[in-house]
Protein backbone atom coordinates (compact mmCIF):
# COMPACT_ATOMS: atom_id res chain seq x y z
CA UNK A 1 0.00 0.00 0.00
CA UNK A 2 2.74 2.48 1.04
CA UNK A 3 6.42 1.81 0.61
CA UNK A 4 9.44 3.68 1.91
CA UNK A 5 12.68 2.93 0.07
CA UNK A 6 16.05 4.06 1.39
CA UNK A 7 14.39 6.92 3.24
CA UNK A 8 16.42 9.33 5.32
CA UNK A 9 15.35 12.50 7.04
CA UNK A 10 17.25 15.37 8.65
CA UNK A 11 16.21 18.49 10.51
CA UNK A 12 18.95 20.82 9.29
CA UNK A 13 22.25 19.10 10.03
CA UNK A 14 20.69 16.68 12.49
CA UNK A 15 19.90 13.31 10.98
CA UNK A 16 16.78 11.71 12.47
CA UNK A 17 16.18 8.74 10.18
CA UNK A 18 18.64 6.80 8.05
CA UNK A 19 18.13 4.15 5.39
CA UNK A 20 14.53 3.24 6.20
CA UNK A 21 12.94 0.46 4.12
CA UNK A 22 9.37 -0.10 5.22
CA UNK A 23 6.23 -1.41 3.54
CA UNK A 24 2.73 -1.58 4.92
CA UNK A 25 0.11 -3.66 3.09
CA UNK A 26 -3.71 -3.73 3.23
CA UNK A 27 -5.02 -5.44 6.34
CA UNK A 28 -1.63 -5.32 8.03
CA UNK A 29 -1.13 -4.18 11.63
CA UNK A 30 2.31 -2.99 12.69
CA UNK A 31 3.69 -1.33 15.80
CA UNK A 32 6.66 1.05 15.73
CA UNK A 33 8.62 1.09 18.98
CA UNK A 34 11.66 2.95 20.14
CA UNK A 35 12.85 5.40 22.78
CA UNK A 36 12.14 9.14 22.75
CA UNK A 37 14.00 10.78 19.88
CA UNK A 38 14.24 7.55 17.91
CA UNK A 39 12.30 9.03 14.97
CA UNK A 40 8.92 7.37 15.52
CA UNK A 41 6.86 10.50 15.00
CA UNK A 42 9.04 11.60 12.07
CA UNK A 43 8.50 8.23 10.42
CA UNK A 44 4.76 8.56 11.01
CA UNK A 45 4.74 12.05 9.47
CA UNK A 46 6.58 10.71 6.41
CA UNK A 47 4.02 7.91 6.04
CA UNK A 48 1.35 10.56 6.44
CA UNK A 49 2.88 12.55 3.60
CA UNK A 50 3.32 15.59 5.86
CA UNK A 51 7.13 15.39 5.65
CA UNK A 52 9.12 14.68 2.49
CA UNK A 53 12.11 12.38 2.89
CA UNK A 54 15.47 14.14 2.60
CA UNK A 55 16.67 11.14 0.62
CA UNK A 56 14.93 8.01 -0.66
CA UNK A 57 11.30 7.90 -1.70
CA UNK A 58 7.77 7.22 -0.51
CA UNK A 59 5.51 5.48 -3.01
CA UNK A 60 1.99 4.09 -2.95
CA UNK A 61 0.61 1.13 -4.85
CA UNK A 62 -2.15 3.06 -6.59
CA UNK A 63 -2.07 5.90 -9.07
CA UNK A 64 -3.93 8.14 -6.63
CA UNK A 65 -2.58 9.01 -3.20
CA UNK A 66 -3.64 6.60 -0.45
CA UNK A 67 -6.03 8.31 1.96
CA UNK A 68 -4.50 8.18 5.42
CA UNK A 69 -6.51 8.54 8.62
CA UNK A 70 -4.45 10.12 11.39
CA UNK A 71 -5.07 9.71 15.10
CA UNK A 72 -2.70 12.03 17.01
CA UNK A 73 -1.49 11.69 20.57
CA UNK A 74 -3.99 12.67 23.23
CA UNK A 75 -3.62 16.42 23.53
CA UNK A 76 -5.30 18.30 26.40
CA UNK A 77 -5.73 21.39 24.21
CA UNK A 78 -7.69 19.40 21.62
CA UNK A 79 -9.92 18.07 24.34
CA UNK A 80 -10.70 21.47 25.86
CA UNK A 81 -11.80 22.79 22.47
CA UNK A 82 -15.50 23.78 22.49
CA UNK A 83 -16.85 21.11 20.15
CA UNK A 84 -19.36 18.30 20.49
CA UNK A 85 -18.21 14.76 19.67
CA UNK A 86 -20.30 14.75 16.49
CA UNK A 87 -18.83 18.09 15.35
CA UNK A 88 -15.27 16.91 15.86
CA UNK A 89 -15.80 13.59 14.09
CA UNK A 90 -17.44 15.34 11.12
CA UNK A 91 -14.26 17.40 10.70
CA UNK A 92 -12.74 14.23 9.26
CA UNK A 93 -14.72 15.02 6.11
CA UNK A 94 -14.22 18.78 6.14
CA UNK A 95 -12.01 18.85 3.05
CA UNK A 96 -14.41 16.78 0.92
CA UNK A 97 -17.77 17.95 2.19
CA UNK A 98 -19.90 20.52 0.36
CA UNK A 99 -18.79 24.11 0.83
CA UNK A 100 -21.30 25.27 3.41
CA UNK A 101 -21.23 25.44 7.20
CA UNK A 102 -23.46 22.45 7.87
CA UNK A 103 -23.07 18.77 7.01
CA UNK A 104 -25.47 16.65 4.92
CA UNK A 105 -27.89 14.21 6.49
CA UNK A 106 -25.93 11.34 4.91
CA UNK A 107 -22.68 12.56 6.47
CA UNK A 108 -24.32 12.80 9.87
CA UNK A 109 -25.78 9.31 9.45
CA UNK A 110 -22.35 7.96 8.53
CA UNK A 111 -20.91 9.65 11.62
CA UNK A 112 -23.61 8.19 13.83
CA UNK A 113 -22.94 4.70 12.40
CA UNK A 114 -19.20 4.99 13.11
CA UNK A 115 -19.79 6.31 16.63
CA UNK A 116 -22.26 3.46 17.30
CA UNK A 117 -19.74 0.97 16.04
CA UNK A 118 -17.08 2.37 18.33
CA UNK A 119 -19.51 2.23 21.24
CA UNK A 120 -19.87 5.99 21.82
CA UNK A 121 -22.99 6.73 19.76
CA UNK A 122 -24.84 7.92 22.87
CA UNK A 123 -22.14 10.56 23.46
CA UNK A 124 -22.47 12.32 20.10
CA UNK A 125 -23.85 15.56 21.55
CA UNK A 126 -21.47 15.65 24.54
CA UNK A 127 -18.68 18.19 24.67
CA UNK A 128 -15.17 16.82 24.24
CA UNK A 129 -14.12 17.87 27.75
CA UNK A 130 -16.86 15.65 29.19
CA UNK A 131 -15.32 12.47 27.75
CA UNK A 132 -13.03 10.03 29.52
CA UNK A 133 -9.60 9.34 28.01
CA UNK A 134 -10.80 6.15 26.35
CA UNK A 135 -13.95 7.77 24.97
CA UNK A 136 -11.92 10.64 23.55
CA UNK A 137 -9.49 8.18 21.96
CA UNK A 138 -12.45 6.47 20.26
CA UNK A 139 -13.76 9.83 19.06
CA UNK A 140 -10.36 10.57 17.49
CA UNK A 141 -10.42 7.19 15.75
CA UNK A 142 -13.97 7.88 14.56
CA UNK A 143 -12.80 11.18 13.01
CA UNK A 144 -10.00 9.37 11.20
CA UNK A 145 -12.41 6.70 9.93
CA UNK A 146 -14.82 9.31 8.56
CA UNK A 147 -12.09 10.46 6.17
CA UNK A 148 -12.55 6.99 4.59
CA UNK A 149 -8.90 6.01 4.84
CA UNK A 150 -7.15 2.85 3.68
CA UNK A 151 -4.33 3.37 6.16
CA UNK A 152 -4.76 4.39 9.79
CA UNK A 153 -1.83 5.93 11.68
CA UNK A 154 -2.17 6.04 15.46
CA UNK A 155 0.42 8.00 17.44
CA UNK A 156 0.80 6.67 20.98
CA UNK A 157 -2.82 5.47 21.31
CA UNK A 158 -2.14 3.78 24.65
CA UNK A 159 -0.49 6.66 26.47
CA UNK A 160 -2.55 8.46 29.07
CA UNK A 161 -5.30 5.86 29.31
CA UNK A 162 -5.90 3.15 31.90
CA UNK A 163 -5.23 -0.57 31.47
CA UNK A 164 -8.85 -1.49 30.86
CA UNK A 165 -9.23 1.17 28.17
CA UNK A 166 -5.99 0.02 26.57
CA UNK A 167 -7.47 -3.40 26.06
CA UNK A 168 -10.60 -2.02 24.45
CA UNK A 169 -8.55 0.24 22.17
CA UNK A 170 -6.44 -2.76 21.18
CA UNK A 171 -9.57 -4.80 20.43
CA UNK A 172 -10.87 -1.97 18.30
CA UNK A 173 -7.59 -1.69 16.38
CA UNK A 174 -7.67 -5.43 15.72
CA UNK A 175 -11.26 -5.20 14.45
CA UNK A 176 -10.24 -2.40 12.08
CA UNK A 177 -7.44 -4.57 10.73
CA UNK A 178 -9.83 -7.43 10.02
CA UNK A 179 -12.06 -4.94 8.21
CA UNK A 180 -9.21 -4.41 5.75
CA UNK A 181 -7.62 -1.24 7.09
CA UNK A 182 -3.85 -1.13 7.28
CA UNK A 183 -2.92 0.11 10.75
CA UNK A 184 0.40 1.51 12.02
CA UNK A 185 0.75 2.28 15.73
CA UNK A 186 3.62 4.02 17.49
CA UNK A 187 4.16 3.42 21.18
CA UNK A 188 6.69 3.47 24.00
CA UNK A 189 5.00 0.43 25.45
CA UNK A 190 7.26 -2.40 24.33
CA UNK A 191 5.44 -5.19 26.15
CA UNK A 192 2.06 -4.04 24.91
CA UNK A 193 3.06 -4.35 21.25
CA UNK A 194 5.10 -7.49 21.87
CA UNK A 195 2.10 -9.19 23.42
CA UNK A 196 -0.60 -8.01 21.05
CA UNK A 197 0.65 -6.95 17.62
CA UNK A 198 1.63 -9.38 14.85
CA UNK A 199 4.49 -7.18 13.59
CA UNK A 200 6.81 -4.75 15.29
CA UNK A 201 9.42 -2.38 13.93
CA UNK A 202 12.21 -1.51 16.37
CA UNK A 203 13.46 1.98 15.56
CA UNK A 204 16.41 3.99 16.73
CA UNK A 205 17.20 6.38 13.91
CA UNK A 206 17.30 3.32 11.68
CA UNK A 207 15.33 0.11 11.65
CA UNK A 208 17.02 -2.25 14.12
CA UNK A 209 14.60 -5.13 13.50
CA UNK A 210 11.29 -5.71 11.71
CA UNK A 211 9.12 -8.80 12.06
CA UNK A 212 6.96 -10.90 14.38
CA UNK A 213 7.71 -10.15 18.05
CA UNK A 214 8.59 -13.75 18.87
CA UNK A 215 11.02 -13.92 15.96
CA UNK A 216 12.91 -10.68 16.48
CA UNK A 217 12.73 -9.65 20.12
CA UNK A 218 15.84 -10.65 22.00
CA UNK A 219 18.33 -8.97 24.35
CA UNK A 220 20.56 -7.72 21.51
CA UNK A 221 17.69 -6.10 19.56
CA UNK A 222 16.32 -4.46 22.72
CA UNK A 223 19.81 -3.18 23.61
CA UNK A 224 20.36 -1.79 20.09
CA UNK A 225 16.95 -0.11 20.17
CA UNK A 226 16.91 1.30 23.70
CA UNK A 227 20.62 1.43 24.50
CA UNK A 228 20.16 -0.63 27.66
CA UNK A 229 20.44 -4.32 28.48
CA UNK A 230 17.13 -5.92 29.37
CA UNK A 231 16.03 -9.50 29.83
CA UNK A 232 13.62 -11.06 27.34
CA UNK A 233 11.48 -14.02 28.44
CA UNK A 234 8.82 -15.97 26.62
CA UNK A 235 5.59 -16.30 28.59
CA UNK A 236 2.54 -18.09 27.14
CA UNK A 237 4.10 -17.90 23.70
CA UNK A 238 4.67 -14.14 23.93
CA UNK A 239 7.91 -12.27 24.54
CA UNK A 240 8.13 -10.24 27.73
CA UNK A 241 10.83 -7.61 28.24
CA UNK A 242 12.00 -6.97 31.80
CA UNK A 243 14.46 -4.45 33.21
CA UNK A 244 16.73 -6.66 35.40
CA UNK A 245 17.66 -3.75 37.68
CA UNK A 246 14.04 -3.18 38.57
CA UNK A 247 13.57 -6.84 39.42
CA UNK A 248 16.12 -6.40 42.17
Amino acid sequence: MIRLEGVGFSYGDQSVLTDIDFTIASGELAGIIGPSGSGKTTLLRILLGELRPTIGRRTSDSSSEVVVGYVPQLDPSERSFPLTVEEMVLLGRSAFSRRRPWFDRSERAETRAILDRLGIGQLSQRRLDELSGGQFQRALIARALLSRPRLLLLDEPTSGIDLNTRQSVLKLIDELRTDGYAVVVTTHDLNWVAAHLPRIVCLNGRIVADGAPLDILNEDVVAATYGARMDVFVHNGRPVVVDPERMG
Partner: protein
Amino acid sequence: MTMSYLTEPFQYDFFGRALIVAILIGVLAGALGPFVLVRRMAYIGQGMSQSVLGGVALGVTYGLDIYVGAALAAVLSAGLIHFVRSRGLSVDTAIGIVASTMFATGVAIISSSRDRRLNSTNLLFGNILGVRTSDIVLVAVVFSIAMAVLFFQYKPLLAATHNASVAAAHGVRIKFIETLFSMLLAMVVVTALQVLGVLLVAATLIIPAATSIMTFSAFRHIVIGSMALGFTFSVIGLFVSFHRNIASGPAIVLVGAVVFALNLLSIGFPRRSAGSIR
Protein backbone atom coordinates in the same frame (compact mmCIF):
# COMPACT_ATOMS: atom_id res chain seq x y z
CA MET B 1 -37.08 54.02 29.12
CA THR B 2 -39.25 56.19 26.93
CA MET B 3 -39.82 55.71 23.23
CA SER B 4 -37.89 58.88 22.54
CA TYR B 5 -34.77 57.20 23.91
CA LEU B 6 -34.92 54.94 20.86
CA THR B 7 -36.21 57.39 18.28
CA GLU B 8 -34.34 60.58 19.15
CA PRO B 9 -30.94 59.48 17.82
CA PHE B 10 -32.40 58.88 14.37
CA GLN B 11 -33.12 62.58 14.02
CA TYR B 12 -29.44 62.82 13.20
CA ASP B 13 -28.22 61.28 9.94
CA PHE B 14 -24.88 60.29 11.37
CA PHE B 15 -26.52 57.93 13.90
CA GLY B 16 -28.19 55.78 11.24
CA ARG B 17 -24.91 55.51 9.34
CA ALA B 18 -22.99 54.68 12.50
CA LEU B 19 -25.56 52.07 13.50
CA ILE B 20 -25.27 50.26 10.18
CA VAL B 21 -21.47 50.20 10.39
CA ALA B 22 -21.46 49.17 14.05
CA ILE B 23 -23.89 46.30 13.40
CA LEU B 24 -21.88 45.01 10.44
CA ILE B 25 -18.63 45.18 12.42
CA GLY B 26 -20.25 43.65 15.51
CA VAL B 27 -21.66 40.68 13.59
CA LEU B 28 -18.44 40.10 11.63
CA ALA B 29 -16.21 40.35 14.70
CA GLY B 30 -18.68 38.06 16.48
CA ALA B 31 -18.32 35.46 13.72
CA LEU B 32 -14.52 35.56 13.75
CA GLY B 33 -14.18 35.90 17.52
CA PRO B 34 -14.63 32.23 18.50
CA PHE B 35 -11.90 31.23 16.04
CA VAL B 36 -9.59 33.96 17.39
CA LEU B 37 -10.24 32.85 20.96
CA VAL B 38 -9.72 29.12 20.55
CA ARG B 39 -6.57 29.82 18.52
CA ARG B 40 -5.32 31.96 21.41
CA MET B 41 -4.86 34.78 18.96
CA ALA B 42 -6.50 37.48 21.07
CA TYR B 43 -3.13 39.12 21.63
CA ILE B 44 -2.42 39.11 17.89
CA GLY B 45 -5.72 40.92 17.29
CA GLN B 46 -4.76 43.47 19.92
CA GLY B 47 -1.26 43.87 18.46
CA MET B 48 -2.50 44.20 14.90
CA SER B 49 -5.06 46.84 15.87
CA GLN B 50 -2.48 48.91 17.78
CA SER B 51 -0.08 48.69 14.86
CA VAL B 52 -2.73 50.17 12.61
CA LEU B 53 -2.37 53.56 14.34
CA GLY B 54 1.12 54.06 12.91
CA GLY B 55 -0.16 53.25 9.41
CA VAL B 56 -3.09 55.62 9.72
CA ALA B 57 -0.86 58.48 10.90
CA LEU B 58 1.74 57.90 8.19
CA GLY B 59 -0.95 57.42 5.56
CA VAL B 60 -2.73 60.66 6.39
CA THR B 61 0.56 62.57 6.54
CA TYR B 62 1.45 61.38 3.05
CA GLY B 63 -2.00 61.98 1.60
CA LEU B 64 -3.38 58.44 1.64
CA ASP B 65 -6.85 57.38 2.71
CA ILE B 66 -7.10 56.30 6.37
CA TYR B 67 -8.15 52.77 5.40
CA VAL B 68 -5.28 52.37 2.93
CA GLY B 69 -2.79 53.38 5.61
CA ALA B 70 -4.44 51.05 8.11
CA ALA B 71 -4.45 48.10 5.71
CA LEU B 72 -0.79 48.62 4.82
CA ALA B 73 0.04 48.80 8.53
CA ALA B 74 -1.86 45.58 9.24
CA VAL B 75 0.05 43.75 6.50
CA LEU B 76 3.36 45.31 7.59
CA SER B 77 2.79 44.37 11.24
CA ALA B 78 1.98 40.76 10.30
CA GLY B 79 5.18 40.61 8.23
CA LEU B 80 7.32 42.19 10.96
CA ILE B 81 5.89 39.87 13.64
CA HIS B 82 6.72 36.91 11.42
CA PHE B 83 10.23 38.30 10.82
CA VAL B 84 10.95 38.85 14.53
CA ARG B 85 9.63 35.36 15.34
CA SER B 86 11.86 33.86 12.66
CA ARG B 87 14.85 35.24 14.61
CA GLY B 88 13.96 33.02 17.55
CA LEU B 89 11.82 35.30 19.73
CA SER B 90 8.46 34.13 21.09
CA VAL B 91 5.27 35.29 19.42
CA ASP B 92 4.11 37.45 22.35
CA THR B 93 7.50 39.17 22.48
CA ALA B 94 7.38 39.76 18.72
CA ILE B 95 3.86 41.20 18.91
CA GLY B 96 4.75 43.34 21.90
CA ILE B 97 7.76 44.88 20.17
CA VAL B 98 6.16 45.40 16.75
CA ALA B 99 2.80 46.65 18.03
CA SER B 100 4.35 49.02 20.58
CA THR B 101 6.76 50.44 18.01
CA MET B 102 4.09 51.04 15.39
CA PHE B 103 1.70 52.43 18.01
CA ALA B 104 4.42 54.76 19.30
CA THR B 105 5.10 55.87 15.72
CA GLY B 106 1.43 56.72 15.35
CA VAL B 107 1.26 58.65 18.62
CA ALA B 108 4.48 60.54 17.78
CA ILE B 109 3.13 61.65 14.41
CA ILE B 110 -0.32 62.52 15.79
CA SER B 111 1.11 64.56 18.66
CA SER B 112 3.13 66.69 16.28
CA SER B 113 0.52 66.97 13.51
CA ARG B 114 -2.14 69.61 13.04
CA ASP B 115 -4.13 67.56 10.54
CA ARG B 116 -7.74 67.44 11.85
CA ARG B 117 -8.17 63.88 10.64
CA LEU B 118 -5.53 62.81 13.14
CA ASN B 119 -7.65 63.27 16.23
CA SER B 120 -6.12 60.97 18.83
CA THR B 121 -9.34 60.38 20.80
CA ASN B 122 -11.27 59.44 17.67
CA LEU B 123 -8.56 57.15 16.38
CA LEU B 124 -7.99 55.44 19.71
CA PHE B 125 -11.61 55.05 20.81
CA GLY B 126 -13.81 55.50 17.74
CA ASN B 127 -16.03 58.31 16.52
CA ILE B 128 -19.57 57.69 15.32
CA LEU B 129 -19.88 61.28 14.14
CA GLY B 130 -17.26 60.62 11.51
CA VAL B 131 -18.97 57.73 9.71
CA ARG B 132 -19.51 58.72 6.08
CA THR B 133 -21.57 57.01 3.41
CA SER B 134 -18.34 55.83 1.82
CA ASP B 135 -17.48 54.13 5.14
CA ILE B 136 -20.76 52.22 4.98
CA VAL B 137 -20.01 51.06 1.46
CA LEU B 138 -16.51 49.92 2.40
CA VAL B 139 -17.65 48.08 5.54
CA ALA B 140 -20.55 46.47 3.65
CA VAL B 141 -18.19 45.20 0.94
CA VAL B 142 -15.73 43.85 3.53
CA PHE B 143 -18.60 42.32 5.51
CA SER B 144 -19.97 40.56 2.40
CA ILE B 145 -16.58 39.19 1.36
CA ALA B 146 -15.65 38.04 4.87
CA MET B 147 -19.00 36.40 5.56
CA ALA B 148 -18.90 34.63 2.18
CA VAL B 149 -15.42 33.31 2.97
CA LEU B 150 -16.55 32.15 6.42
CA PHE B 151 -19.63 30.48 4.92
CA PHE B 152 -17.76 28.56 2.24
CA GLN B 153 -14.63 27.78 4.27
CA TYR B 154 -16.21 27.16 7.69
CA LYS B 155 -15.46 23.42 7.78
CA PRO B 156 -11.78 23.55 6.70
CA LEU B 157 -11.23 26.58 8.95
CA LEU B 158 -12.68 24.78 11.96
CA ALA B 159 -10.70 21.61 11.18
CA ALA B 160 -7.46 23.60 10.86
CA THR B 161 -8.22 25.47 14.07
CA HIS B 162 -8.85 22.29 16.03
CA ASN B 163 -5.76 20.38 14.87
CA ALA B 164 -3.77 21.56 11.85
CA SER B 165 -1.75 18.32 11.47
CA VAL B 166 -4.85 16.14 11.44
CA ALA B 167 -6.68 18.53 9.12
CA ALA B 168 -3.74 18.46 6.70
CA ALA B 169 -3.70 14.65 6.81
CA HIS B 170 -7.40 14.66 5.97
CA GLY B 171 -6.94 16.93 2.95
CA VAL B 172 -7.29 20.50 4.25
CA ARG B 173 -4.93 23.05 2.61
CA ILE B 174 -3.53 24.51 5.80
CA LYS B 175 -1.40 27.35 4.35
CA PHE B 176 -4.33 28.58 2.28
CA ILE B 177 -6.67 28.49 5.27
CA GLU B 178 -4.19 30.22 7.58
CA THR B 179 -3.54 32.99 5.06
CA LEU B 180 -7.27 33.41 4.55
CA PHE B 181 -7.86 33.70 8.30
CA SER B 182 -5.10 36.28 8.77
CA MET B 183 -6.60 38.34 5.94
CA LEU B 184 -10.05 38.17 7.52
CA LEU B 185 -8.64 39.30 10.85
CA ALA B 186 -6.81 42.21 9.24
CA MET B 187 -9.98 43.23 7.36
CA VAL B 188 -12.02 43.34 10.58
CA VAL B 189 -9.35 45.34 12.41
CA VAL B 190 -9.05 47.91 9.63
CA THR B 191 -12.75 48.40 8.97
CA ALA B 192 -13.62 48.58 12.69
CA LEU B 193 -11.30 51.55 13.09
CA GLN B 194 -13.91 54.26 12.57
CA VAL B 195 -16.46 53.04 15.12
CA LEU B 196 -14.31 51.28 17.69
CA GLY B 197 -10.90 52.88 17.50
CA VAL B 198 -7.60 50.99 17.47
CA LEU B 199 -7.52 50.24 21.19
CA LEU B 200 -10.89 48.54 21.41
CA VAL B 201 -11.15 46.47 18.24
CA ALA B 202 -9.76 43.37 19.93
CA ALA B 203 -12.44 43.56 22.63
CA THR B 204 -15.20 43.09 20.05
CA LEU B 205 -13.46 39.95 18.85
CA ILE B 206 -13.09 38.59 22.37
CA ILE B 207 -16.05 39.58 24.56
CA PRO B 208 -18.98 38.26 22.46
CA ALA B 209 -17.07 35.04 21.71
CA ALA B 210 -16.09 34.47 25.35
CA THR B 211 -19.68 35.06 26.49
CA SER B 212 -21.00 32.65 23.87
CA ILE B 213 -18.44 29.96 24.65
CA MET B 214 -19.56 29.97 28.29
CA THR B 215 -23.16 29.51 27.19
CA PHE B 216 -23.18 26.98 24.34
CA SER B 217 -21.63 23.55 23.74
CA ALA B 218 -21.55 23.10 19.96
CA PHE B 219 -19.11 25.34 18.09
CA ARG B 220 -21.69 26.26 15.43
CA HIS B 221 -24.00 27.50 18.20
CA ILE B 222 -21.09 29.41 19.74
CA VAL B 223 -20.46 31.20 16.43
CA ILE B 224 -24.14 32.05 15.93
CA GLY B 225 -24.45 33.18 19.56
CA SER B 226 -21.32 35.31 19.26
CA MET B 227 -22.67 37.00 16.12
CA ALA B 228 -25.98 37.72 17.89
CA LEU B 229 -24.13 39.16 20.88
CA GLY B 230 -21.91 41.26 18.62
CA PHE B 231 -25.05 42.66 17.01
CA THR B 232 -26.70 43.34 20.38
CA PHE B 233 -23.65 44.97 21.98
CA SER B 234 -23.22 47.26 18.97
CA VAL B 235 -26.85 48.43 18.98
CA ILE B 236 -27.13 48.99 22.74
CA GLY B 237 -23.62 50.46 22.88
CA LEU B 238 -24.39 53.04 20.21
CA PHE B 239 -27.55 54.19 21.98
CA VAL B 240 -25.63 54.48 25.24
CA SER B 241 -22.89 56.35 23.38
CA PHE B 242 -25.41 58.84 21.98
CA HIS B 243 -27.34 59.49 25.18
CA ARG B 244 -24.36 59.52 27.54
CA ASN B 245 -22.18 61.46 25.15
CA ILE B 246 -19.27 59.02 25.39
CA ALA B 247 -17.11 57.62 22.61
CA SER B 248 -18.76 54.78 20.66
CA GLY B 249 -15.94 52.27 21.13
CA PRO B 250 -15.91 52.29 24.94
CA ALA B 251 -19.72 52.26 25.05
CA ILE B 252 -19.94 49.10 22.90
CA VAL B 253 -17.15 47.39 24.81
CA LEU B 254 -18.60 48.28 28.23
CA VAL B 255 -22.04 46.93 27.30
CA GLY B 256 -20.35 43.69 26.26
CA ALA B 257 -18.29 43.59 29.46
CA VAL B 258 -21.42 44.01 31.61
CA VAL B 259 -23.23 41.16 29.81
CA PHE B 260 -20.11 38.98 30.08
CA ALA B 261 -19.86 39.67 33.82
CA LEU B 262 -23.57 38.96 34.39
CA ASN B 263 -23.25 35.73 32.44
CA LEU B 264 -20.20 34.75 34.47
CA LEU B 265 -22.03 35.40 37.75
CA SER B 266 -25.27 33.73 36.66
CA ILE B 267 -23.61 30.42 35.88
CA GLY B 268 -21.52 30.43 39.06
CA PHE B 269 -18.52 28.29 38.43
CA PRO B 270 -18.29 28.22 34.65
CA ARG B 271 -18.20 24.78 33.09
CA ARG B 272 -15.73 26.19 30.61
CA SER B 273 -14.10 29.52 31.18
CA ALA B 274 -12.78 31.42 28.19
CA GLY B 275 -9.30 31.32 29.66
CA SER B 276 -9.24 27.53 29.77
CA ILE B 277 -9.63 27.13 26.06
CA ARG B 278 -6.65 25.44 24.42
